[in-house]
């Protein structure tokens, strides 16, 4: 039997040479965390866990999948029918992509509401946008792999976006395809990149965490941590809170996988790719719909493409568009209203993105696109200058206490 001291001695021996235990202690145990975090702060760890789920199921799927235009579709069907639990593996991975985007979008809107992108967390935010871009690229290429109709035509449409650029456009597209249409070379490289990029995401996530732990988490009040009284150790308080959230999340995830695995997919992708026939109604996966709506809202090809890219790119400069000193929307009466309008607007964009590009939908998508960009480029800078806010609580503790004892929760905001 190893007694306690020997055990201690061994980990201490390791820790002196490779400080893994100190690292875990600092970042997952003692790590001082604002004591007022609500459940919206669960979504970072949920995103991390989803990334791990996607990588594990992805590696196992790659062991069964064949990246060849003649074999890809059948190899996916073989996974569904012949591979032990192959259906489970694929449905987890397929729906995991959707869950990943739900989680990350909530995570982003959380940051947007509580001003998590503001000083001193600008790089933390920008690294997050890089992760989002990598996720989008990875998800898009993953959707191409089953080589169904939607795979093929999605790949054709998205790669053709680059043809909008004058002069070099066609060369870029031919380069992306590795040929003169979406074909075997395209499929092979998409598979390789789809396998590679998640590991790039892991790398950026590591940087994201380093940047996070530099100043610690933001919190619902947006007020900086001022004393030890404002924080509690990460373990056991937030490990338990994250763990509980994970349980709820996995129940929803499992419900989707087991009871509605194709709910978010498109039936046309169970038809093998046919380069001679485009499906009548072609839509991207739901998580791209708002951006797709912006693309279609613009009558000019190049401008549409540029605006669609700009819709994501604008997030990069967000910390410099919203320079208001107060972080949390809780204390910003006007920003709060525009924020909720923006959230609704994004849902509307997603909805019109799924509708045919004609009639009233075009008008709606134009209005929604205009609001999308106005929110960032007009409303935010104006509010930064003119929005007046009342007195803020002096600390996280006092905010928490006044919330608890003052039944009138508005009082501290005034």
């Amino acid at each position: 039997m190893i007694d306690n001291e020997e055990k201690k001695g061994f980990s201490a021996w390791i820790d002196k040479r490779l400080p893994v235990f100190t690292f875990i202690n600092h970042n997952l145990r003692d790590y001082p965390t604002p004591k007022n975090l609500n459940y919206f702060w669960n979504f970072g760890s949920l995103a991390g866990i989803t990334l791990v789920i996607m990588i594990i199921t992805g590696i196992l799927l790659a062991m069964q999948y064949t990246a060849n235009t003649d074999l890809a579709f059948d190899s996916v069907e073989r996974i569904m029918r012949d591979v032990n639990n192959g259906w489970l593996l694929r449905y987890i991975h397929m729906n995991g992509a959707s869950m990943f985007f739900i989680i990350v979008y909530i995570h982003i809107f959380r940051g947007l509401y509580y001003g998590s992108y503001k000083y001193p967390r600008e790089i933390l935010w920008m690294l997050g946008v890089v992760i989002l871009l990598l996720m989008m690229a990875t998800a898009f290429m993953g959707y191409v792999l089953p080589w169904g109709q939607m795979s093929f035509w999605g790949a054709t449409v998205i790669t053709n976006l680059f043809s909008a650029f004058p002069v070099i456009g066609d060369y870029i597209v031919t380069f992306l395809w590795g040929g003169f249409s979406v074909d075997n070379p395209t499929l092979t490289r998409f598979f390789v990149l789809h396998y590679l990029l998640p590991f790039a995401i892991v790398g950026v996530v590591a940087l994201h965490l380093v940047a996070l732990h530099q100043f610690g988490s933001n919190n619902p009040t947006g007020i900086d941590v001022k004393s030890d009284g404002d924080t509690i150790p990460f373990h056991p308080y937030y490990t338990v809170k994250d763990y509980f959230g994970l349980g709820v999340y996995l129940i929803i995830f499992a419900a989707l996988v087991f009871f509605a695995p194709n709910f978010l997919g498109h039936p046309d992708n169970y038809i093998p790719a046919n380069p001679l026939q485009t499906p009548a109604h072609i839509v991207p996966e739901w998580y791209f719909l708002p951006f797709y709506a912006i693309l279609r809202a613009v009558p000019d090809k190049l401008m549409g493409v540029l605006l669609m890219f700009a819709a994501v790119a604008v997030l990069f400069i967000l910390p410099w568009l919203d320079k208001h000193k107060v972080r949390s929307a809780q204390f910003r009466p006007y920003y709060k209203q525009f924020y909720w309008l923006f959230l609704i607007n994004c849902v509307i964009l997603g909805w019109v993105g799924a509708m045919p590009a004609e009639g009233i939908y075009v008008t709606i998508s134009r209005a929604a696109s205009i609001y999308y960009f106005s929110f960032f480029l007009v409303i935010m800078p104006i509010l930064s200058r003119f929005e007046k806010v009342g007195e803020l609580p002096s600390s996280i503790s006092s905010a928490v206490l006044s919330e608890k004892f003052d039944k009138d929760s508005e009082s501290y905001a005034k």
Partner: protein
Amino acid sequence: MKKTTIETKNEVSQIDEEKRDFLFVTTAGLAVAGGAATAISLINTMNPAKDVLALSTTEVDLSPVEEGQSLTVMWRGKPIFIRHRSKEEIESAANVSVDQLAHKETDESRVDNPKWLVVVGVCTHLGCVPLGQKVGDSKGEFGGWFCPCHGSHYDTSGRIRKGPAPLNLEIPPYKFVSDDIIKIG
């Protein structure tokens, strides 16, 4: 109120610890059970799939193979050596005293019909395919097969006679469906 909690701290923590132990054990137990069930399901995807298992039998027509000739067929991705043995080969295999063999098996126990020897053509050392099926091949010192990788010699019954291999060439499960047709697997 606060004071009472501090005063009765010992008592309170006593109750709490039991409750906490219970919660901790049930939580951790369920997490381990759920994690293990998930892991097993996922790892099981790497086991042979149904289409792979479906390829596990094959039928072979022996009628074109003349005495002294050999035939190699595929079964489960491996070569199966079938040799139509001559009288001399059968005798030389049968006349070996079992005691002097590394892996003690009689020739009788290794064949169904002595004219036909059916073995898995994979050296029991490290998995190479031994020579001896083709006309020009070296058949080793005992007239059977010779593995070029590390020099194992097999006799006309596919038994290991010399070299590093520990076991005789494996006999696949097979049976004669008719006089001329065998079903392997």
